[in-house]
């Protein structure tokens, strides 16, 4: 009876019928130039893309991750796709009604009146941003929030100053590919002393067939500024794998705080492992200023493959980096995820809390690096990695790397692996709870420390998502 539930379809797997405008399949310098030209970019940005592309040609796809997948044919991907007749939007009313309906269906209404109060949304459909809400309200505080493409046009100095400073174009195979072909993404700038009064949120949607999505996000918090940013994502169900290789860069100056939360729900493939998104993502933040703080919170439930290690470079003295993660793998999903905490400044602190849940044939790997440089006296790290197994065909793996060059550092690592026991489930059932409720309860208890970090409404969403992901995993 439980197995039936396992076969329940991915709720977000529909396709929107809009006319798309794409570049030809494959990747070469011409494609890079074409993407840049379509976006009417300044010469320096095209140069930067080309440098990235040439570097990429010399690079090899990394093979060290604990994931298995067939070869990706990079010449068989369409690197840019956008809904046609993209207007220069004067207001939200001009959004293509089909696209608008798509976001409504996903529970992301683009009507400002209908939105959850206190959340500004940037909606990205395939390669382009289609709408940003509450732009004016934010502008009155000096906050810039919108698509990356718009920022390139309207605030080129800011983009030029920070682009690639956290994740250089030569960083790694996937980040370098992104640097060459990135299409759109979000840009946020919080000026000095401003606390952003609402959550900023981007919703990413892959729609077109055989396209990759390569978005790039840049968030800058000036001295004393603070912001909380959320991203969500879904994709249609398709039999072939689709590549998603994003880059996110965060910069926090003196006393600034950036909280970045992700609820990742790309199409995971079907129960036999057919289709699903390959999610190869590079996310990193620099705590450039003293007392700055960056918190990454991620709930990774989708994608056939997840490869991501949101990290913090703790450069400013007394800066703080945090990473809270829940990653679930069910059916044939694989996740190799964790974080990098690079301590450079004095008295820098980092906290890592990772919760991996594996069910079905899922394989879940935590991979984390804590590096304490010579000059990082008084640095502290606390890491906790817990794995929960459901059933006996899944796997959990932990690879913590420590690199400590300063003797005053204090580093603690705790790890545990547990199985949802028959006894736990029976205990819950004896108290009147169904098997499904029992599993949800046990899992939510396991993830509690991470969910606590999410903004309220999203914590509820994340919990629901988790229960859908794990549906049918016990029976």
């Amino acid at each position, binding site marked *: 009876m439980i197995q039936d539930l396992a076969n329940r379809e991915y709720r977000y797997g529909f396709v929107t019928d809009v006319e798309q405008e794409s570049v030809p399949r494959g990747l070469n310098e011409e494609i890079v130039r074409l993407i840049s030209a379509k976006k009417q970019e300044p010469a320096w940005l095209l140069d930067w893309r080309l440098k990235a592309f040439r570097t990429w040609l010399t690079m090899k796809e990394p093979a060290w991750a604990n994931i298995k997948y067939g070869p990706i044919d990079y010449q068989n991907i369409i690197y840019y796709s956008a809904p046609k007749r993209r207007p220069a939007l004067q207001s939200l009313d001009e959004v293509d009604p089909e696209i608008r309906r798509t976001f409504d269906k996903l529970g992301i209404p683009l009507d400002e009146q209908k939105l959850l109060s206190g959340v500004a949304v940037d909606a990205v459909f395939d390669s382009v941003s289609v709408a940003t809400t509450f732009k004016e309200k934010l502008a009155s505080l000096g906050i810039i929030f919108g698509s990356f493409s718009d920022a390139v046009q309207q605030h080129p100095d800011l983009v030029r100053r920070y682009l690639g400073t956290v994740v250089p174009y030569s960083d790694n195979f996937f980040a370098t590919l992104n640097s060459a072909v990135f299409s759109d993404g979000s840009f946020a700038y919080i000026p000095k002393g401003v606390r952003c009064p609402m959550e900023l949120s981007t919703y990413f949607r892959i729609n077109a067939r055989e396209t990759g999505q390569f978005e790039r996000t840049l968030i800058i918090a000036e001295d004393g500024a603070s912001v909380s940013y959320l991203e969500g994502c879904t994709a249609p169900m398709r039999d072939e794998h689709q590549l998603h290789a994003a880059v996110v860069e965060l910069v926090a100056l003196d006393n600034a705080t950036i909280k970045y939360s992700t609820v990742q729900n790309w199409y995971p493939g079907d129960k036999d492992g057919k289709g699903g998104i390959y999610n190869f993502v590079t996310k990193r933040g620099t705590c450039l200023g003293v007392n700055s703080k960056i918190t990454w919170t991620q709930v990774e439930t989708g994608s056939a493959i997840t490869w991501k290690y949101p990290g913090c470079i703790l450069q400013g003295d007394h800066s703080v980096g945090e990473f809270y993660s829940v990653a679930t793998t069910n059916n044939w999903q694989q996740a190799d995820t964790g974080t990098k905490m690079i301590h450079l400044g004095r008295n820098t602190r980092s906290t890592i809390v990772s919760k991996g849940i594996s069910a079905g044939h899922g394989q879940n790997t935590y991979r984390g690096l804590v590096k304490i440089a010579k000059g990082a006296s008084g640095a502290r790290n606390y890491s906790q990695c817990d794995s929960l197994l459901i059933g006996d065909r899944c796997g959990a793996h932990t690879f913590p790397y420590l690199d400590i060059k300063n003797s005053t550092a204090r580093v603690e690592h705790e790890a545990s692996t547990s199985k949802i026991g028959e006894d736990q489930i*029976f*205990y819950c059932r*004896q*108290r009147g709870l169904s098997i499904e*409720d029992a599993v949800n*309860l*046990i899992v939510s208890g396991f993830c509690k420390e991470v969910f606590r970090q999410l903004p309220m409404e999203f914590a509820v969403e994340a919990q629901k998502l988790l229960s859908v992901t794990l549906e049918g995993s016990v029976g």
Partner: protein
Amino acid sequence: MDNPVLLVENLHVRGGGREILRGIDLSIGRGEVHAIMGPNGSGKSTLARVLAGHPEYEVTAGSVHYKGQDLLAMDPETRAREGLFMAFQYPVEIPGVNNAYFLKGALNALRKHRGEEELDAMDFMTLVRERMKRLDIDESLMNRSVNEGFSGGEKKRNEIFQMAVLEPTLAILDETDSGLDIDALKIVAHGVNTMRSPERAMLLVTHYQRLLNYIVPDVVHVLTDGRIVRSGGKELALELEEKGYGWLEHVGCD
């Protein structure tokens, strides 16, 4: 006359590759408190767990009727929702799940099944405070995770407390006295006695007679080697205490 709350007839059960229960007959009426005593390995905990629907046992013969319904046809959660409660010998820890939240979920599952409105957090906490007071249980228990880091005594008290909130029709207490010091035993026994009512039947599974100094049963059964070899009044427990289980093995076997 009323039907018994629980009627067990010729129950045979296998588990772990062998026959553990070999023809149990037992009838418990409304408001009655029965004690099942027996040496280790006699099958008394198996009986408790089979009645609660634990999946690791196979019933090979016999029947069990609960409030006139076929108990063995019900899944464990349905049994619970129908008012069958088991206090576990080894209560299970559920890390990160708040004790109050867990119990509220359980109570509302029962209420929903009975067609009653679910309790909101406020009403639930009012009920909880009243029951805690009645059972002399410390309120801090509610803010902790289910059984996590509880001492043996706290776990058992938590079981009795859950029973007090869920108000079962039939409560099965599986070796609730084991591992308790005398003070903890008194608190648990006080809880059970408080819950005694003409509306509630209880089945106490115990190895030792000492629990029965504090909870006085209406009927005592002695289980050895998968069979009830003797049933009697409360004085049977005392006799057993004096003479040991060996005495009955001779008397009971044919």
